């Protein structure tokens, strides 16, 4: 049935994100769309129903291979579980590039364009350590959800940067938020009820951070608690600028997607596959820099933010 | 056909047809209810009695045929339409809401509100008055109940039937239709319902009564509509025929022509002891 003319004859590239609603992935799709247009390609997109939804991503890969894509860009929801399906796609001659999150093993895809989430966590951990300036820390961590790799990496990175182990007594409250602002607020409220003297809050992303800020503000504690986060969305950077969040690690989804589409376009034209790991970078954004941790200010952050 | 030509029928139907898939429930049924009479509708199970009165009271839309009220054609799109014309019905399948109490059921769709601003603006129900009036109506029917705040689902079958009957009688102004109202009632309660029917008739409101109980029918009916295979096969006066003859007509053994019964099915007639 390839003789059908109704669909365009332009080479196709597929983009599969974790969810279809997170601004991070929406930005990624925008970047891919723009790059696809520039390179004369047709973009197909699909997404899981929730963070961690492997089955929908498998289905999307199958359908895209059936639709005859040249390459697939994927942010794997489950870094291990997706590997067999990626292998099938590659066996069918499709180039597969992981975006944002590496598969396990990383070689399962042809290439990886990503931010190091562990490093992102580490940066804010280091920042927090320095900013606390030796004050005894009482930490709340507002995490993602059980078993989601990104959340785990950022959390681990933060602890590492802060120089403590999992289970350290200075972490007095840990709660899952699914990266949701309302749930972040509820979690912070309950943490404060439990340990009113919390003075440092790590959050999985900026919506959760803003939820935490709202909860702190209701208690009049917003001035003396340090909130650090990861993501670098425009709303988040603005919150850094206005002082609600102390610092955030900024990532670059647009760039990942643009580079990915270009690589597929190149492959479609020349048959040459990209390979290896391309770090699309992570930058600490804060207006209150500390000694020994490299950072850019919010002006830079706003120029480069997404969402 | 023996329709009395004396007056305009209160409720009348011509050629009603209703099909359910391949089952024909009504097959060109006619119907006439005269002013101030008790009309019994009898017939075998499945003869289409319930379907007929459902069609007459808006609970069912006939596929064909017309209905006339006081001589003028009407169309009842729903039971509310019929009710607006003062036609009240006790359906065979007990139109009571199981989890609500007796008083609420009595007043369902016509609730009383408190007087004054509480009722008009705040729409507050006058539960006390509704309970008292229900108690009065139930007492009229002498249906014994231990509590009016019990949900209807905890009543015995007969008590539940009593609630439905009391409800219809309380509200009817034009016609009362009852589909086997005494089927589940005890002797005493049946007697009360029959008395109530007489009282309604004596008040000038005609009553349609579906019943399988021939003694009841002969005791109370002014005329009898005999339904068979989805059609009216005869209209008789109880005085003109005895019970065995009526049963024979119902089962098709006899046929009525010009007001006299003639044998239609020799075997069937013999089988029931007529010849």
């Amino acid at each position, binding site marked *: 049935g390839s003789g059908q003319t109704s669909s365009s004859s332009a080479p196709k590239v597929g983009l599969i994100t974790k969810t279809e609603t997170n601004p991070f992935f929406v930005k990624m799709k925008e970047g891919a769309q723009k790059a696809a247009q520039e390179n004369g390609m047709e973009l197909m997109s699909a997404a899981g129903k929730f963070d961690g939804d492997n089955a929908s991503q498998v289905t999307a890969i199958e359908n895209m291979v059936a639709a005859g894509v040249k390459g697939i860009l994927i942010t794997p929801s489950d870094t291990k579980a997706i590997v067999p399906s990626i292998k099938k796609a590659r066996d069918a001659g499709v180039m597969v590039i992981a975006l944002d999150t590496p598969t396990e093993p990383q070689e399962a895809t042809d290439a990886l364009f990503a931010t190091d989430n562990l490093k992102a966590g580490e940066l804010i951990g280091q920042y927090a350590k320095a900013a606390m300036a030796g004050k005894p820390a009482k930490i709340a961590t507002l995490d993602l959800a059980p078993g989601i790799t990104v959340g785990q990496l950022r959390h681990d990175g933060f602890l590492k940067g802060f120089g403590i182990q999992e289970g350290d007594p200075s972490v007095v409250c840990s709660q899952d938020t699914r990266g949701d602002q309302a749930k972040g607020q509820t979690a912070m409220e309950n943490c404060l009820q439990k340990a009113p003297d919390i003075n440092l809050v790590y959050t999985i992303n900026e919506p959760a951070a803003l939820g935490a800020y709202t909860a702190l503000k209701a208690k009049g504690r917003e001035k003396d608690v340090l909130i650090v986060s990861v993501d670098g969305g425009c709303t988040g950077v603005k919150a850094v600028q206005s002082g609600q969040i102390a610092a955030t690690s900024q990532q670059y989804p647009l760039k990942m997607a643009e580079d990915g589409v270009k690589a597929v376009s190149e492959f479609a034209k020349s048959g040459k596959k990209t390979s290896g790991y391309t770090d699309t970078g992570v930058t600490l954004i804060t207006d209150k820099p500390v000694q020994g941790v490299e950072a850019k200010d919010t002006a830079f952050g706003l120029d480069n933010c997404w969402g | 056909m023996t329709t009395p030509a004396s007056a305009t029928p209160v409720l009348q139907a011509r050629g009603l047809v209703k099909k359910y898939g391949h089952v024909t429930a009504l097959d060109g049924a006619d119907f006439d209810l005269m002013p101030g009479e008790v009309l019994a509708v009898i017939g075998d199970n499945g003869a289409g009695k319930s379907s007929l009165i459902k069609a007459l009271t808006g609970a069912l839309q006939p596929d064909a045929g017309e209905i006339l009220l006081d001589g003028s054609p009407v169309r009842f799109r729903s039971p509310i339409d019929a009710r607006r014309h003062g036609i009240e019905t006790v359906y065979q399948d007990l139109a009571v809401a199981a989890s609500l109490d007796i008083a609420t059921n009595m007043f*369902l769709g016509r609730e009383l509100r408190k007087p004054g601003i509480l009722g008009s603006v705040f729409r507050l129900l006058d539960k006390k008055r509704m309970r008292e009036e229900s108690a009065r109506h139930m007492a009229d029917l002498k249906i014994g109940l231990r*509590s009016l705040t019990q949900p209807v689902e905890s009543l015995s079958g007969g008590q539940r039937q009593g609630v439905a009957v009391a409800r219809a009688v309380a509200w009817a102004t034009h016609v009362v239709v009852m589909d086997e109202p005494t089927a589940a009632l005890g002797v005493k309660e049946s007697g009360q319902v029959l008395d109530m029917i007489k009282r309604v008739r004596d008040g000038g409101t005609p009553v349609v009564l579906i019943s399988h109980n021939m003694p009841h029918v002969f005791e109370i009916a002014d005329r009898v509509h005999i339904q068979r295979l989805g059609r009216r096969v005869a209209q008789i006066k109880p005085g003109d025929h005895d019970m065995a003859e009526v049963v024979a007509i119902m089962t098709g053994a006899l046929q009525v022509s010009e007001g006299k019964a003639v044998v239609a099915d020799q075997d069937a007639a013999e089988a029931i002891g007529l010849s």
Partner: protein
Amino acid sequence: MAVMEATLPRRLITTPVAGPLAALVLACLFFGLNTGQFFTGPNFSLIIQQVMVVGTLAIGQTLIILTAGIDLSNGAIMAFGGIVMTKLAVTGGLPPLLAIAAGLAVCSAFGLVNGLLVTRISLPPFIVTLGMLNVVFALTHIYSGEQTVTGLPPLLTVLGQTFQVGQTNVTYGSLLTILLFVLFAYMLGSTAWGKHVYALGNSPEVARLTGIRTRRLTVGVYTVAGLVYGIAALLLISRTGVGDPQAGQTDNLDSITAVVLGGTSLFGGRGLVIGTLVGALIVGVFRNGLQLMGVPSIYQTLITGVLVILAVAVDQLSRRRNR
């Protein structure tokens, strides 16, 4: 004829809310004994704030479940309503009150469409609202462009303001939620409309034969529910201070949980809206209490699961004893 009225103590034991209430009290006692921070005014104020959004959604859900329906789209409708209110007020430049009115209207309209689909084409409510969930979810994300709306005018978040009761700060939103419960308890229990809703849930056929306009009533119930979801949207905005396109994604099941924990039958016709409040509080108390006890998230999920079953089991067993 002797008309016996149930005595008050008897009614208290036999009311369907007795079981859930017992479960709630037990849970409170348990957490009170196990964590020092639980039995404080501010903590209770907090719990009410945390359950007010789902609780308000659950009011609409209760109405619909009483008619033997179910609504899977309520969280999505609330999210859309929230985006409409905030976007119109912030980027649309509409006066905040108008923006709120528009949001409430949009939510009611979605409820209306649900109701029309259920009555006009006789579709099962489960399917209608499942389809609507997807449609509204997509519309929310398309309309919002995935952007969280910030910088709201103060009027939109006024319900988040607090007033003092003794030592405790209570938000106006909490108060509004309680008032809504009282209002709907009144409407269901003491008006003809409420009785008709129960009759409809018992049996649509019986209700129809009794002369209730079942279609109109059903459409009305879904529309009122939609309006209530709009109010929930306003409560959510006032609580978080933003318009969030990601909001409400698990609120459909959460609100159903609150309704069922409150003793309302999923088969319609039986239940009380006050039970729903109790049900919502049970969930809120569990979550808050477990958090205060420092139980890790995944174990909280485990325990919540067990407790949800236990709460309803206590209810069932107590009723059985009363038989």
